[in-house]
């Protein structure tokens, strides 16, 4: 950040088991989002390593990391981060469009569309497929983001303050979606939040303070 180097994480050592729902709780500026981004290979640590399925992520080429991010990880962000020019269906299918080249995508189009419709339907969005993000509520946008994250059947779902921009009731709805994913599909979820009540809904909670996990 800024012009100089600012240490954010000061020695973090964490293991995440398959099927686990882990919450990392901490105040703003504690480094929890930075940790999440590093775990999801969105950002690179200055020292240290991340191992996923026995592979050290940051020894791999950028293109390979991108492939893992596309096929094995899914991201849900606090501010949804949907592409404004694409409709709900297209946003949900974005990860699949990145995964497959044009010719292959066209050959799998109907299967992929079916999967996207199924996911969106399970999230209560089947009546919004042609709408664009600016026509949706906050909760609907976050559900589209979750659909996008699930499109490629990720091994790990990373959620960065998924309820941070929502009111309590809508936030609760989103949490119920994540819990359902965890319970029904044994989805591995790593979530960061500043809200203790939200964090407590995970299997395990770690507290981040001044760049360290407690």
């Amino acid at each position, binding site marked *: 950040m800024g012009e100089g180097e600012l240490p954010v994480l000061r020695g973090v050592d964490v293991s995440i088991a398959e099927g686990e729902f882990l919450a990392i709780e901490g105040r703003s500026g504690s480094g929890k989002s930075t940790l999440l981004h590093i775990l999801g290979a969105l*950002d690179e640590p200055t020292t240290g390593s991340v191992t996923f399925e026995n592979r050290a992520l940051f020894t791999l080429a*950028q293109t390979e990391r*991108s492939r893992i991010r596309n096929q094995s990880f899914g991201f849900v962000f606090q501010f949804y*981060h949907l592409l404004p020019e694409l409709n709900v269906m297209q946003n949900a299918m974005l990860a699949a469009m990145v995964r497959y080249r044009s010719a292959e995508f066209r050959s799998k189009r109907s299967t992929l569309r079916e999967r996207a419709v199924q996911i969106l339907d399970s999230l209560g969005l089947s009546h919004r497929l042609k709408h664009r993000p600016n026509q949706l509520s906050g909760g609907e946008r976050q559900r589209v983001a979750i659909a996008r994250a699930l499109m490629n059947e990720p091994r790990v779902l990373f959620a960065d303050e998924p309820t941070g921009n929502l009111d309590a009731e809508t936030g609760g709805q989103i949490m119920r979606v994540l819990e359902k994913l965890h319970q029904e599909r044994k989805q591995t979820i790593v979530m960061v939040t500043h809200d203790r009540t939200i964090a407590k809904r995970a299997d395990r909670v770690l507290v981040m303070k001044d760049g360290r996990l407690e």
Partner: protein
Amino acid sequence: MYIPLLILKYLRKRRIAWVSLVAVMLCTAMVLVVISVMGGWLEMFKDKFRGMSGDIVVYRPGFAGFAGYEEMTADIKKMDGVDQVLPLIRTVGLWVLNGRHPEGVQVTGLDLKEFSKFNRFRETLWRQYQKPIEAGQKPPAEASFDLLPDVPYEIFRPGDPQARQRPGMIVGGPLVGMRKDKDGKVNEPGGLYQCWAKLEVMPISSETTSIVDAAPVPNWYWIVDASRSQLYQLDANSVYVPFDQLQRDLKMTADTYTDVKTNKEVTLPARCSELQITIKPGTDRTKLIALINVKVQEITEKYEPMAYQPVRVEGWEKQQAMFLDAVENEKSLVTFLLSLISLVAVFLIFCILYMIVVEKTRDIGIIKSVGATSQGVAAIFLGYGLTIGLVGGLLGLGVAMVIVRYINEIHTWLGKAFGLVIWKPEVYAFDIIPNTMDPMTCVIVVVVAILSSVVGAVLPAIRAARLNPVEALRFE
């Protein structure tokens, strides 16, 4: 799949990019219209000059001409690949129409009957070709300087006992005020074929050192036709007369004199200014020029060993290089300048795409977060530039095709609506603006437009590719 989808979405939704698309379109159209008009102009020049000339020309610069042309003609005609050889005389003279309108003119003496079969000069003649064609009639097979049988010439030159023996003359149309009216119809001046012209020429030989020695020789001619070659600069000051008549007036006929050293009679053969030579299809012109040159120098050496100026043997283009090179250079220069101006479009694309990359920083972060590579992100913006170039280039091609196709109608409309006349026959050689397009030129210009647009997109694409996804997601 995301790359073409996002390119199309951004093209449709980001309307600022349409500005760069319009810039590409206008630059493409501008370059194509200019290349087509100037290229067409050059081709028309070449075609018209070509139609008035042989394939090879033998000539000596200046007005003195060269001797031995009859011997050269006989020898050249025997060479393989040679079709026809015809002599011409070219000089300048003072031309006065009906005793009242003096003009300095280029005078060409030719055997019109032979020339009719030699090149397209016959097609430039108004009375003996163009007028019958316009009337749906068949023109005479040969053109001639013959007087019109139904004109009482004695009445129009009373006091001239040789009125009916005067030779015929063909004049350039503009010399006698022949032009197209606003409806495109040629106006033949009334009484044209009852007009006579006095032509004074100056006999000049290689020994002439003073204008006093070249005392003008007058002759009187009847106007029997007008030439409209569409080469205005040629038509505006040219007259054509019988070869034999001009040769006599210029004292270029065979001349016998006594050599002071040997006291013997020496005959200097007749002179002409040019030999126009046509060749048979498939003949190697360069080789033939070399052979003819050997023969010409041999004969010139025999009759004019002390001549200062050599006789040249050249292809017709080289002889007309003065006109053609000027147009060629103008075309190249204007094309280069317009292409330079088109760099503005490249810069515009760069600025607009750079702006879009900044605007789309967060989107780039999103795309990278779902696993797109840096190369994939760069491909979006390079593809965006390519699409702008392709669509703009094709639209520009369409606009250019319409403009070029209807350029004369547009010009006429501008003249009627605003009094704006850009293409003046007095300045330019032709009375119509060239309106054809070369397909290969179109392809090249559109391809260059596309490549230029991609070049404009390179730096923005690199910036997009290098964005850190986390920082991009935080961008406001």
